[in-house]
């Protein structure tokens, strides 16, 4: 069985420092630490779980990004993935989710028969949750989004518990299928020390736009229907704000005012 895990290296938006923005309002990516997108790690774990349960499973991790994204391929392989590569090319730059999903789906098509494609529901730098379903459509695969738990797997079908707006459902799909995994799924296992040492010296494979049989007009900025018209730095409109020191008298007056105005 062949499993492809889609992963992304993302800026660590939980640790955004003061220098995260340039003076002109653009993002200063160089100043941001990067991480393995958390839900993609959950997807990797689900794929590795399938590998635990079945014979002859091969897990390949695919990412798109700058050469530095090779770090997450090494990370994934140290945790148990068999192979991985980075789709890296200036011609991918400026891609929105449509152009991104096109490039990724073309790369997956070059891998031959794939039984399962898995990825995080969304990346923390965009939160759009679009690339998974878009890759599924481009590969003409059914999709199971919001997966929380692998219930069962065999050579022909997968059973998944997935999140609904209010509750969960258990669904079964024939393979091949694409699955997106949420943060509620199991945490990924830790890297294995032996694998870590082995991977330290490994060269991660880089793939460019020429080797994915792509229509160049559908890549990068050119292939992106959404355009950023305007970016505004957030300037807060100052309200008449009353600043209070936390004295008993001040808080007494404030609560009296709120009660009088029927707010409390």
């Amino acid at each position, binding site marked *: 069985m062949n499993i492809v895990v889609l992963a992304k290296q993302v800026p660590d938006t939980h640790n955004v420092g003061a220098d995260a923005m340039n003076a002109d309002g653009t993002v200063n990516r160089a100043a941001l630490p990067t991480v393995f997108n958390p839900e993609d790690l959950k997807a990797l774990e689900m794929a590795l779980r399938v590998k635990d349960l079945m014979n002859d499973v091969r897990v390949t991790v695919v990412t798109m990004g700058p050469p530095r994204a090779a770090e997450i391929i090494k990370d994934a392989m140290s945790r148990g993935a068999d192979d991985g590569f980075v789709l890296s090319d200036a011609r991918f730059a400026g891609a929105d989710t449509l152009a991104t999903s096109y490039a990724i789906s073309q790369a997956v098509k070059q891998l031959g028969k794939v039984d399962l494609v898995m990825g995080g529901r969304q990346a923390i730098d965009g939160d759009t949750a679009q690339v998974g379903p878009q890759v599924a459509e481009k590969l003409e695969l059914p999709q199971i989004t919001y997966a929380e738990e692998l219930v069962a797997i065999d050579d022909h079908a997968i059973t998944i518990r997935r999140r609904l707006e209010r*509750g969960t*459902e258990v669904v079964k799909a024939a393979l091949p299928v694409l699955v997106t995994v949420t943060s509620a799924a199991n945490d990924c296992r830790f890297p294995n020390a032996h694998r870590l040492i082995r991977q330290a010296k490994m060269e991660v494979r880089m793939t460019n736009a020429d080797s994915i049989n792509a229509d160049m007009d559908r890549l990068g900025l050119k292939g*992106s229907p959404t*355009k950023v018209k305007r970016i505004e730095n957030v300037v807060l409109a100052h309200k008449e*704000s009353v600043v209070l*020191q936390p004295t008993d008298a001040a808080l007494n007056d404030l609560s009296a005012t709120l009660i009088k105005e029927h707010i409390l």
Partner: protein
Amino acid sequence: MNNVLVYCELSENNTIADISLELCTKGRQLASRLGCKLQAALLGAQVKNIAESLYPFGVDEVLMAEDRRLSPYRTMPHFEVLRRIIEEQKPQIVLFGASSVGRDLAPRIASYLRCGLTADCTSLEIGNHEDVKSGKTYENILMQIRPAFGGNIIATIVCPETRPQMATVREGVMKKEIFDASYKGAIIPVALGDYLDKADKAVEILSREIEEQKIDIKGAQVIVAGGYGMGSKENFELLHQFAHLIGGSVGATRAAVDAGFCEGERQIGQTGVTVRPKLYIACGISGAVQHRAGMEQSAKIISINTDPDAPINAIADYTIIGDAMTVIPQFMAAYKNNLK
């Protein structure tokens, strides 16, 4: 005519979901501005009896697909029907809820149609766009406005060349308002074909467990919200006591939810719920734009923060400079005192 289309979701008790009615309200405004019709796509097993409930929200045409295979929602049957509706009707704008259904369906549709899709918009407007490179002007297109990147910026996204222009919006972000209680629309049945058989086989639902909605802060009139600055789950307990005393509900920022201080249902902001209470008390919240997007329409805002320069203070009516863990007990004592 290229109209505005809203994809309608059904709630578990087979009524039109609130998010879809909110989108109809916004869709009506956009359609009136553009001088076109507002259409609603309604897909389900038994929807004839609820189709008319869309009219008061200003819906001109309900494109109705009724089939047992369309309920409960599954991606492939809805995808196959909706993409055919869009190909036939050629709407200029399609709106989806940013719910687990909308976020599953909309990107698949966008991919198939090769059009743009902007997620989690906080505002939708009609405007003109001049392409700087080509010098070409696009009149009356959809301005899709959303906070981006760490909340430090507000981005306006346009899709000048591709149609339809598609966007998702979170529940509670747009207001749900009756447009005209006696407004009359029409039902247009959608003919279904053999393609549903194949779509039906893709994914089978073995079981469903619907949870009672335990926490729902959307309608709360008073909200005591805590941020990462509250420090711990234990400290959040004080917010619950405070909220209980003043008859409010507890809300939280994404950072506080991610840190495990409280349940995800309490998350307020762009990726949580949007609230408009009479009073919003922000405790240890710095005020990232994503959080403010979910609460800035509160009638009165009080910020309790040790940092006099916290961004939230700029939109607060009252700012109390101090540690929430000491200010809140003082406030509670003062409140009890005034009730006497």
